[in-house]
């Protein structure tokens, strides 16, 4: 009926219109027919609803959809502290709004067999540890790296969350992007790396995703060299850095203890945090080491060096920005290349390197400075509660002690913190952890936190106490000796007296011949512990990843098997469900 040009015009119009627009159009045309007059002569006549003000259209005018070919999209996230999950969830909501059939899934739950079938696969993944994927994404990460699967059908996009303060920025995201490509996937769009202030960039990334879903451009052949790079460069880090003043610093361990665990109270007005969050610090290198390096190499302390779009005098750079105390293998490798000597690939301090494998001249040393990595932040679980300790942040810091051929050495950051005196100030940021949160006030919680693992639970208990939360609280604590190492003993006793702590079990490993740990105490309590879980209790583990959190998990599975008379597989499943429903969470290191 219509002439071809008219037809194409109409098709374009339809294709170019959102659902709302089409609905309006059809109504409008009906109106036109009814009026029996050429509408365009007087469009206002029909009082059209102001289409462009409908929210969907308003926020994403540049995101029309292919109503022609409806797409199925999977949005998978890998998270440690909840950021990736939060974003992925927002994205899924937006996609659904657009009528896109969307599956939102955590990578720990993702069925790896589905991978080959995926058409549109979006991943939001953070980086943890020293450039590692989040624990929850490990299975997926290893699976794609084994390279046994092929994903020819797949069009993928990766949003990497990270922190430019760490040496390997967004490493896990990079790997996933690269590897999906290697196993045959096509990039729907380039890898997007985001720093800690990821919201806007992430938003734009998803706009581009929606665009691509509509009219896929040919795959960008350029591998993950992302458009984000310039942004990142422009803002070294978007983190909010606070300054706090030390109010108190006491070693909680008594005389004669083999440990030093410092309780720090920091005055920090107006810092937003919630129980479960931790505090991040970038430690400074010891002045003596820096001086020694300068002396050894004869380098000019005041020579300006570029670093992240800023200029720093060499001495400052070495003292405050670059990791010199304990270089990872990869840096040692680069060093070897610079000094053209073969060096065994081990971790070692820069000073030792320079002593054993000297640089030829100052120029060569400058080259070495070029390969050094930034000092990685250290995190400390916050042990105070915003409700109970307003205007303050408390930390529970174990002075990290180790020995190198008989000589006692201390960890860089924890040593610095343990030495802080009243009135001194420190710079820090808050690392939010929306995965490690108190449940509803009336829910019961079981807290397993030996050693410094007690920190977030002190926060939990103080918070619940201050808010008068009705839920029951059960704490498992352990350390070496009852008399010297019972961290926060008197506070815990008060919580027991006032009924805030419903139960407490302690394990002091070295007070008897046979070593006793928290998991042994859990075993003793297995019946009650399972009863608590059955009645909906939330279980938290904090402290040493190895071996504590591993042993605790094994014990948990045993308890579930024994008390719930389940098979090993059923127990695994039971625990998995707790994890999925947010009732089993760990903050381990």
């Amino acid at each position, binding site marked *: 009926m219509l002439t071809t040009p008219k037809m194409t015009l109409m098709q374009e119009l339809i294709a170019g219109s959102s659902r709302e627009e089409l609905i309006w159009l059809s109504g409008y045309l009906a109106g036109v027919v009814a009026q029996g007059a050429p509408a365009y002569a007087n469009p206002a006549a029909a009082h059209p609803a102001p289409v462009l003000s409908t929210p969907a259209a308003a926020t994403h005018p540049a995101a029309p959809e292919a109503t022609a070919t409806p797409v199925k999209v999977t949005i998978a996230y890998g998270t440690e502290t909840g950021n990736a999950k939060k974003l992925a969830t927002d994205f899924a909501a937006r996609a659904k709004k657009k009528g896109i059939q969307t599956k939102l899934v955590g990578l720990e739950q993702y069925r790896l067999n589905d991978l080959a079938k995926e058409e549109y696969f979006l991943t939001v993944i953070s980086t943890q540890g020293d450039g590692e994927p989040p624990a929850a994404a490990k299975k997926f990460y290893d699976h794609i790296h084994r390279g046994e699967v092929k994903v020819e059908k797949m069009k993928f996009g990766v949003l990497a969350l990270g922190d430019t303060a760490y040496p390997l920025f967004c490493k896990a995201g990079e790997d996933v992007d690269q590897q999906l490509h290697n196993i045959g996937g096509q990039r729907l769009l380039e890898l997007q790396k985001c720093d800690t202030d990821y919201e806007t960039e992430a938003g734009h990334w998803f706009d581009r995703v929606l665009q691509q879903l509509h009219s896929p451009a040919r795959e960008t052949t350029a591998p993950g060299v992302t458009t984000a790079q310039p942004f990142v460069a422009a803002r070294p880090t978007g983190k909010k850095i606070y300054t706090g003043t030390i109010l108190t610093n006491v070693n909680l361990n008594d005389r004669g203890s083999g440990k030093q665990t410092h309780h720090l109270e920091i005055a920090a007005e107006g810092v937003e945090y919630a129980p479960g969050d931790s505090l991040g610090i970038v430690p400074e290198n010891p002045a003596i080491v820096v001086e020694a390096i300068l002396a050894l190499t004869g380098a000019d302390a005041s020579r300006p060096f570029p670093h992240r779009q800023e200029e720093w005098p060499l001495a400052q750079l070495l003292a405050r920005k670059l990791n010199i105390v304990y270089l990872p293998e990869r840096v040692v490798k680069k060093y070897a290349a610079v000094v053209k000597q073969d060096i065994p690939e081990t971790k070692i301090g820069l000073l030792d390197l320079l002593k054993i494998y000297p640089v030829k001249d100052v120029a060569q040393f400058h080259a070495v400075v070029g390969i050094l990595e930034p000092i990685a932040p250290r995190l400390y679980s916050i042990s105070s509660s915003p409700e109970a300790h307003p205007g303050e942040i408390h930390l529970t810091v174990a002075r990290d002690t180790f020995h190198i051929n008989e000589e006692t050495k201390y960890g860089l950051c924890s040593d610095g913190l343990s030495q802080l005196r009243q009135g001194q100030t420190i710079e820090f940021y808050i690392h939010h952890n929306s995965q490690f949160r108190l449940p509803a006030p009336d829910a019961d919680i079981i807290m397993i936190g030996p050693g410094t693992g007690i920190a977030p639970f002190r926060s939990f208990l103080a918070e619940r106490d201050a808010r008068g939360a009705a839920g029951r609280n059960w704490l498992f604590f352990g350390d070496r000796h*009852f008399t010297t190492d019972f961290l926060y003993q008197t506070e815990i006793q008060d919580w027991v007296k006032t009924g805030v702590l419903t139960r407490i079990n302690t394990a002091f490993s070295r007070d008897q011949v046979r070593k006793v740990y928290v998991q042994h105490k859990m075993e003793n309590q297995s019946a009650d512990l399972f009863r608590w879980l059955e009645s909906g209790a939330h279980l938290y583990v904090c402290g040493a990843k190895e071996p504590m959190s591993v042993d605790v998990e094994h014990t948990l599975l045993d308890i579930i098997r024994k008390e719930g008379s389940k098979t090993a597989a059923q127990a695994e499943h039971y625990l998995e469900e707790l994890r999925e429903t947010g009732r089993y969470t760990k903050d381990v290191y």
Partner: protein
Amino acid sequence: MNDTKNLSSTERIKQKSDGLRGTLAEGLLDELTGAISEDDQALVKFHGMYLQDDRDRREERAEKKLERLFAFMIRLRIPGGFLTPEQYIALHHVAGEHSTGTIKITTRQTIQLHGILKSHARPTIKAFNAVKLDSISACGDVNRNVTCAAHPAQSPIHAQVHSYAARISQMLLPKTKAYYEIWLDQEKLTDKSEEEDPLYEDRYLPRKFKIGIAIPPNNEVDVLTNDLGLIAIIENDVLQGFNVAIGGGLGATHGNSDTYPRLASVIGYVPADDRLFKAIYTIVTIQRDYGNRSDRKLARLKYTLDKYGADWFREEIAQRAGFPLEPARPYVFNERVDYFGWQQNHQGLWYYTLFIESGRVCDSEKLALKTALLEIAQTGKANFRFTTNQGLILADIKKKDKATINGILEKYHLLAHTENASAIRKNSIACVALPTCGLALAESQRYLPTLLTQIEKLLTAHDLDKEAIILRMTGCPNGCGRPYAAEIGFVGTGPGRYNLHLCGDHEGTRLNRIYKESLDEATILKELDVLFWLYKKERITGERFGDFALRQKWYKA
């Protein structure tokens, strides 16, 4: 009969304690604290232990958010203060494994160990039990460790007299098996009738009860400071019987004039046969029934005696026992000493009395005392006899073994240590006080040694250094070091301050009196300087310092 209406809280605790069990077993399992409940603290004394804490560490631990450094002090029951070498070796090792390591010889001839953590309490008692040592009734409202003249050379029949200590102690033990249940994992009794206790019933005594036995003319046991003192009456080496003295006790409270130290009054004589035991048992029951159970400060036998009078008491004994006490026999006390150095008894056995300052057996950089004593015990050639002056006698050594023991004493410089100690130091006592004693107001055993060094200088200056003046110090008015029965007594009133008591006699038959109050060290030394000067200048030859002081009326009017 005692007022049953307003009973003191301790009385209630005892009565509802289910034979001194309370919740001790549960308390030992409490993982949250090193302490036990307050009620159980009262009960655990009957098992020979006190819950204490290291008072030096309170503030620092509080800052560290750690509770007080709680630990038990255990006091053994050693009637007459006798240990075999095997028992001493065991004691040495228990001290090392479970306590501070220091072995404290007490003023009642027994041993205390401090700093025993809750988790170590059972192992400690088990280890002692293995060598037939216990701590039953070493504390609490029961008969305490029975003391007796320690030195066998005092009399050919010392052994016979000494044997009464153990027999009396045995007779007056409570019947409850709680001790064995709680500390030695023995089966719980099903038939509680085995525990029927006609003597203590379910209320025990209103207060601690102490018995001591003296062999005149030496009164080194301070027999008159006991609730019940027995003075052996020996006629040409045959034991006849005992004079009975009641109402001794030294405890007092600053500012409470109703409380006072008192020496026992001799109320009669009883022959050394069944009647002796009957009489003792009866006296205990009278105190059980008439002692004050509403005010613990006035609950000792001395107050009961002063309330009802000696005649009433004699009458009550006669009625209950079925026979009267005979009139007291004559006796004399003319000394109150430990016989330092080597002595020989009538059988030719050898004895070495060692000087141990404040009864504290430990190794210091100057003196390896503890090591030496272990080595001696390991020879198996000497028994260990403790004295009520916190002293130690290496005892019953055969002639042929004397050289061996002497050699060890020589090797560890203990001969010189004993010989060189000044007369006043050898005749001094200091109670435990800080840091473990919860009642201490001032230092005592940690302080007296240095104060004595100053006092020795004064004595030498006045050429009195050979005078065996009896000097005693306590950290509070409770009198654990029997300071009221000394020629020079120091009683702590507050940090660094002491009341100075004078005019007590040398033999322990006359209490001293307050001379000046709350003196600091400087004032103490200034005072003594003048007193010694006058004593040297104006004493009658042979006149003891205590008697001279009285003649000079050196007491607060």
